[in-house]
C-alpha cells in the first residue's frame, strides 16, 4: 500500500531523513516513533506530497508520488500535527468542502458526517465557525474530515495530542476498523502505550535513520516497548 524506498531529505547541510525504507501493507497499522527532531514529520509530509525529497521514491498502490501525485493523494487521508483548518468556515462547511474535493456522494456524506460527528460529540458545534473551536475540537474535526472520504491509507502526525480520553479511545477503535477493512495506517506518536496496544507494526527512527522496523511482537520481545525504545535511542 505504502512503499517508502530509500527516502532521503536534506535541509541545507542537515540530513533530516537518511535512506529510509519502509513497506506498509494493507491491514497493517504502523506506529512511527522517535525522539524530537528525529525526522518523523519530514517522512510523513513526504508521503503526502507536501515535501519534495532529494533521493529515493514513495509509492502508493504502486504509483510513484513523484509521477502522479493526484492519483496517490486520492487514496490518502492526512492529519497534520497541528489541526490548522479554515477558521473562516463553520465545521459543517469544512466537512462539505472536503467531501466535494474527494468526491464523496451526497447520501454517503450525510450518513458519515452524522455518524462521526455524533460519535465525537461535536454535532452541536458544527454550525459554529472553526475559529471558535478549542484545539481538541479542531483535532476531532480534522479526524472526521479524514474519515469521511474512506481513505485506503491514513497518515497521521501525532493524532492523539489534545484529544480527551474518550475521543482517543474512539479514534483507536476507528483505526482498528479501518485496518480490518483492509486499509493501512501510518502514524507518528510519542505515546508508547498506545502504539504498543493497537499497532501490529512498528518503526523506530533516530537522527533520520530507521533503526528498527517490523512486527511489534518481534521488536518488543519480552520487554515493554518503553524499555526497548529507551535502550535503542539512549
Amino acid at each position, binding site marked *: 500500500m505504502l512503499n517508502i524506498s530509500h527516502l532521503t531529505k536534506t535541509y541545507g547541510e542537515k540530513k533530516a531523513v537518511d535512506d529510509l525504507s519502509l513497506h506498509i501493507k494493507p491491514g497493517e497499522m504502523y506506529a512511527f516513533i522517535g525522539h524530537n527532531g528525529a525526522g518523523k514529520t519530514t517522512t510523513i509530509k513526504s508521503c*503526502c506530497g507536501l515535501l519534495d525529497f532529494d533521493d529515493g521514491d514513495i509509492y502508493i498502490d504502486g504509483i510513484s508520488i513523484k509521477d502522479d501525485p493526484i492519483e496517490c493523494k*486520492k487514496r490518502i487521508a492526512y492529519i497534520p500535527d497541528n489541526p490548522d483548518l479554515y477558521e473562516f468556515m463553520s465545521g459543517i462547511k469544512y466537512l462539505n468542502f472536503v467531501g466535494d474535493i474527494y468526491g464523496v456522494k451526497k447520501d454517503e456524506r450525510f450518513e458519515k458526517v452524522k455518524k462521526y460527528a455524533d460519535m465525537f460529540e461535536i454535532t452541536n458545534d458544527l454550525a459554529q465557525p472553526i475559529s471558535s473551536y478549542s484545539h481538541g475540537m479542531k483535532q476531532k474535526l480534522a479526524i472526521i474530515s479524514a474519515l469521511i472520504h474512506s481513505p485506503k491509507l491514513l497518515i497521521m502526525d501525532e493524532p492523539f495530542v489534545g484529544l480527551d480520553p474518550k475521543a482517543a479511545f474512539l479514534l483507536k477503535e476507528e483505526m482498528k476498523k479501518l485496518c480490518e477493512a483492509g486499509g493501512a495506517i501510518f502514524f507518528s506518536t510519542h505515546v508508547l502505550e498506545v502504539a504498543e496496544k493497537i499497532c501490529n507494526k512498528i518503526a523506530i527512527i533516530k537522527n533520520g535513520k530507521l533503526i528498527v522496523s517490523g512486527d511489534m511482537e518481534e521488536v518488543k520481545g519480552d520487554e515493554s516497548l518503553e524499555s526497548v525504545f529507551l535502550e535503542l535511542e539512549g
Partner: protein
Amino acid sequence: MFKTLLKSRFAALGASLTQRSKKRNSNGTKVLLIILFAFLGVYFVAAFGMMFFGFSAVLYPRGDGWQVFALASLIASALCMFGSIFTTKTQIFESGDNELLLSMPIPPRYIFFSRMAILLLVNYGLEALVMLPAMIAYGIAGRYSVLGFLFAILTFILIPMLTLALSSLIGWVISIIASKMRNKTIVTTILFVVFFAFYFYFVMNMGAFFGNMEDEASLDFSGLKNTYIFYWIGDAIANANALSFLFFALAAIIPSAITFYILNRSFVKIVTTKRSAAKIKYKERKEKQNSVYVALTKKEINRFFTSSAYIMNAGTGNIMMIILAVVASFNRESLMMAVSGLSSELSVDVSKYVPVVIAFFGIFMSSMNFITAPSISLENKNLWILQSSPVRPYTILNAKISADIIICTPLTVISIIILCIALGTPFVPSLLSILVTVSMVVFGGYFGMFMGLKFPKFDWQNENVAVKQGFAVFGAMFGGMLWSIILIVASVFLSMISPYLAFAAIIVVNAVICLLFNAYFKNGAEKEFRLLKQ
C-alpha cells in the same frame, strides 16, 4: 506607566505608517516617508492658506469674517472625522494587545486614555492642516481682536475633542450593531460604505449646501448659519462674541465628556466581551455535491466575504466605484452641462467620447481590486489542505481567479451601467465600455494571481498584514494601476482615430495577456505551487 503606554502606542502608530514595505524600517524608506509626509503637509497647508487668504480678503471687509472660520472649522472637522473613524475602531476596540495589557497590573483607564491621547494627537495634526493656514491667512488679510484670537486658540484645542468623541461613538455603535448580526463582516463593511457614501456626497456638495463660490462678488457661505456649531465658532473668533464661544464650548465639551466617560467606563467590558453572535444551531441537511472546481471557488468567495480586512483592502476598487457612480448620478445635471459646455468651447461633439471616459474610469477603478494577490499568502497555515488534496494546482489557481471575477464583475457592471444611464450614452458604446471594464477585471484576476504566487508572504500572525503588506499586494496594486494608465494613455491616441478602435485594442491586449498567464499557470506554476512553504 502612562508614559510607557504612550510610547508603545507611538511605536505602533509609527509602525503602521512605515512598516509597509517588505524590508522593515530601513532608514532609507523612513526618510523617504518623512519627506513624503512633509511634502504633503506643506502642500495642504499652502493650498488651504491660499484659499482662505482669498476668502478672507473678500469676506473680512464685508463684515462676513465669521464665514472664514465657519468654513475652516467645518473642513477641519470633516478631515478629522475621515482620518480617525478607521483608526479609532482598530486602535481602541480591536487592538491586538488589549488582552495582554489588561492582564498586567495597569489601571484600564490608563490604557484607554493612552489610546485616546494618540488619536487626539492624530486629530490635532489633521486639524492643523486646515485651521492653521486659515488662522494665519485671516490674520494677514483681516484682523483679530485680542478676545477673538484667544477664542481661535481655544477653538483649535476643542475641535479634535468633539470629532474624536463623535468618531469613537460611531466606531462603537458600528461594533455593537455588527456584533448583534450574524454576518459581522458584511454588516461592518456596508455600514462603513454607507457612511462614506454620505460623506463623499456631503463633501462634494458642500459648496451647494452652504453657499456660493462661483466668483468673488457673490462669494457667500451664509448657509453655514444653519449648522449652528460652525456659525458659533466663526462668530466667536471674528466678532469676539463670547456668548457664541460659550455655546460652542458647551456643545463641544459636554458631549465629548459624556462620550469619554461612558467609553472609559465600559472599556474593559467592550474589550473583554468576545463579541460573538449567539450560538448558531446546527440543522442537519443533505448538502448537494459540488464539483471540485465549484467547491474551491466557493471557498475563495467565502474567504473574501468573511474578512472585513480583505474586503476593505483588496476590494477598494469595487467600493469606490459604486460610491462614485452613485454620487455622479446625483450630480448628473452638472456633469451633462460640463459635457455640453466643453463641446461648445472646443466646437467638437465631446459626447461621443463620454463612453471612453466611462471606460477609463472603470479600468482605473478595477485596477484597485487585487483579490487574488493576497490569496496565497492568506492560505499560510492552511496551505497543507490544498497541497495534500488530490487537485491540480492549476485548478486551484483557476478557482481563485474565478472567485475574483465573480466578486468584482457584478459591482463593476452595475457601476458602469449607472454611469451610462446618468450620462445618457447610447447602447452600443455603453455595452463596449462594460466589456472593456470587465476585461480589466479579468486581467486583474490573472495578474494578481501571478504576483500572489511569485511573492507570497507567510510570516504573518494577523491577516491584516497578509492583505496589506508584502510585494504581492503592492506589485499587484501598483502594477495594475500602471497598466491601467498605459492602457488609458494608449487608447486616448487610438480614440482620436475611433473610440471603437480603442475599445477593441484594450479587450484584445488584455485577453492575450490573460492567455499567456493561463499558459504559465497550466505548465510552469504547478511545481511552484507544490513547493510553496517548503
